[in-house]
């Protein structure tokens, strides 16, 4: 477990409380999340019998993967008490730059896309880690910069139409053997790597430690700035990767491609139980959070209501979930 001390403590609390359902959910919030996810799936099946089958599950995974990847970066950043509001712009820019370089071949094009993520992440990291700008302001600023640069770039590049390479299309929309989404094959290793890093490596533990008390880390001789710098670069690289998956799914590089992912990327992390103030949470919760949001989206699509009403319901349910979660764990 990522926080042994806290877990032991909460077990004691649970034991003294009598071990009811609520205290079980309180100590093992991941159980609550999984139950919620199952409830959502059951809801769909009840409303439209026959919807939930292998194809549906595989589609959900396909749609959840980009959100899961973009929210992975957000989780890392939030564990240190930060936030990254530039992930959506980075995803869009990465996809667009990749698409305009597809003439060079897939590998160089992908590298160009990821380079965008690296550059923005580096600027974020330098500003936040070295110059101590608040993460909200810094990433807001770099998000605006990235967006503006992208618009200028798209106008300069008018001769070379953006084209999504076949391999990226396969990654974002294809399925292996007709059932396993290809992007799950990318998300899976990323997820395992992140959970491993958070639970089993010094870097992961330092992320929790910095989120808990940055000053104490500094006094303990940790070079906080290095950890944060690496962390923000990783977050942007993950956002850039997600952008590539997203553009593979839609097959057209637009200038507002990943905008819709900003709110879900934050919401998945919060619903997944990572505190925005840092030091508490983990990626496994975020994975369930991303799945819950994807299934929620699917429910709202089935409801057959106008886009505007969907937007209202989506926001309202996120608020309810986040509020319930905050109540449960406080």
């Amino acid at each position, binding site marked *: 477990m990522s926080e042994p001390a806290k877990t032991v403590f909460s077990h004691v609390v649970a034991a003294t409380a009598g071990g009811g359902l609520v205290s079980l959910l309180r100590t093992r919030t991941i159980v609550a999340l999984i139950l919620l996810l199952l409830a959502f799936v059951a809801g769909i099946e009840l409303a439209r019998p026959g919807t939930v089958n292998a194809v549906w599950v595989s589609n959900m995974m396909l749609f959840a993967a980009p959100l899961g990847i973009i929210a992975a970066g957000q989780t890392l950043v939030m564990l240190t008490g930060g*936030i990254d509001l530039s992930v959506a712009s980075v995803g869009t820019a990465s996809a667009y730059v990749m698409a305009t370089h597809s003439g060079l071949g897939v590998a160089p094009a992908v590298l160009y896309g990821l380079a965008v993520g690296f550059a923005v992440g580096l600027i974020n990291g330098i*500003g936040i880690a070295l*110059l*101590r*700008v*608040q993460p*909200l*302001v*810094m990433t*807001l*600023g*770099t*998000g*605006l*910069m*990235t*967006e*503006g*640069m992208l*618009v*200028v770039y798209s*106008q300069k590049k008018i001769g070379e139409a953006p084209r999504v390479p076949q391999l990226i299309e396969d990654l974002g929309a294809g399925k292996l053997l007709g059932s396993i989404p290809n992007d799950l094959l990318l998300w899976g290793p990323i997820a395992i790597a992140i959970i491993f890093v958070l639970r089993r490596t010094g870097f992961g533990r330092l992320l929790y430690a910095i989120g808990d008390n940055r000053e104490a880390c500094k006094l303990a001789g940790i070079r906080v700035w290095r950890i944060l710098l690496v962390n923000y670069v990783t977050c942007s690289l993950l956002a850039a990767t997600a952008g590539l998956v997203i553009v593979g799914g839609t097959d057209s590089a637009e200038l507002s491609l990943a905008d819709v992912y*900003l*709110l879900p990327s*934050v*919401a998945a992390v*919060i619903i997944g139980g990572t505190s*925005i*103030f840092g030091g508490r949470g983990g990626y496994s919760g975020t994975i369930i959070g991303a799945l819950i949001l994807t299934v929620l989206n699917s429910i709202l699509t089935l409801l057959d209501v*106008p*886009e*505007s*009403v*969907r*937007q*209202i319901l*989506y*926001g*309202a349910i*996120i*608020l309810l979930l*986040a*509020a319930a979660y*905050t*109540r449960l764990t*406080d």
Partner: protein
Amino acid sequence: MTTSTEGKSSVTPVAGTASKMRLLTRLRRSLWRSPALFFMPALLFVSLATTVGVHPQFSDFDLQSLAMGALPLAFAAAAQTVVVISGGIDLSVGSAMAVANVLAASTMEKASFGQSLLLAVAVLIIGAAIGALNGLIVVLSRIPDVVATLTSGFIWGGVALVILEKPGGGAPQEFLNLGTGTLFTSWLPNALVLVVTAVGAIWIPLSRSRLGLQLYAVGSDRIAAFRSGVKINRTRFAAYIFSGLFSAVGGLGLTMTTGIGAPLAGVYYTLSGLAAVVVGGVSLAGGRGGMLGPVMAAFVLTLIPTDLIFLNIDPNFGQVIQGTLIVTIVMIGGFVDMARNRK
């Protein structure tokens, strides 16, 4: 903490004792304490001078379009400022503006001038109600304000789309004139008058009231404020109401200057308004800054794309410059803070 009175320190004269020497020391001291107070007018002056410099035929018409462009942004900045001073953040400002904008444009289309003014009052009340709901969500749900308002902003965006699906609607010409016309001379645009009077009429009494002081106190140090008997939740709630009110004025301004309602037009103003707040010297940590800085910053941020057009540079670089400006100014602020703490 001296921070809560900083914004006022250079305004309130110390009774009688101010000799010329004292004045100079005091000027230097307040420059040291809140550089934004001097930095902003300077920045505004420089960007205006640049505009006139590269575009010598700067006319009354240019001034009018500048004021019209800055009108919605100034109110977005004002809305954000109140919440930021109280130590919070409101990422739903743009969507609240969009709701006010489409509400006004869809109801005023066939109204007379008198009716449209009544409708404007109704929109202001609804704006305050939206702010109140945001405040309730933040205070009651205990979800961090960034996440709560990001999500509620998403909801208000949906509400704006429900009210008006596509850009359309309108308002009587006399009403539009409040934002597009001029007063007395063609060098005094109504938009400028509207910004100064509306922000002044709400902010000056507010900042001098008990509630105003409480806003600064809560933003400066929540625990200290609580121990001094300030009702934290009520104060934060009030800040969001004022944010909703200012957003509604901004939405009305958007209706006046564009002549229509557009459900997606407001989105832009959340981030740009926050940019104006940061550039205007209001600390995102709360409790520090005033209203003058962000409103002036709104004009500077509006001038930048105009200057770029005159300089024959792609105006889309405006957003890049905005982003750079935010980051640079916060860094400078950080260095000033560091230097001050070291002293």
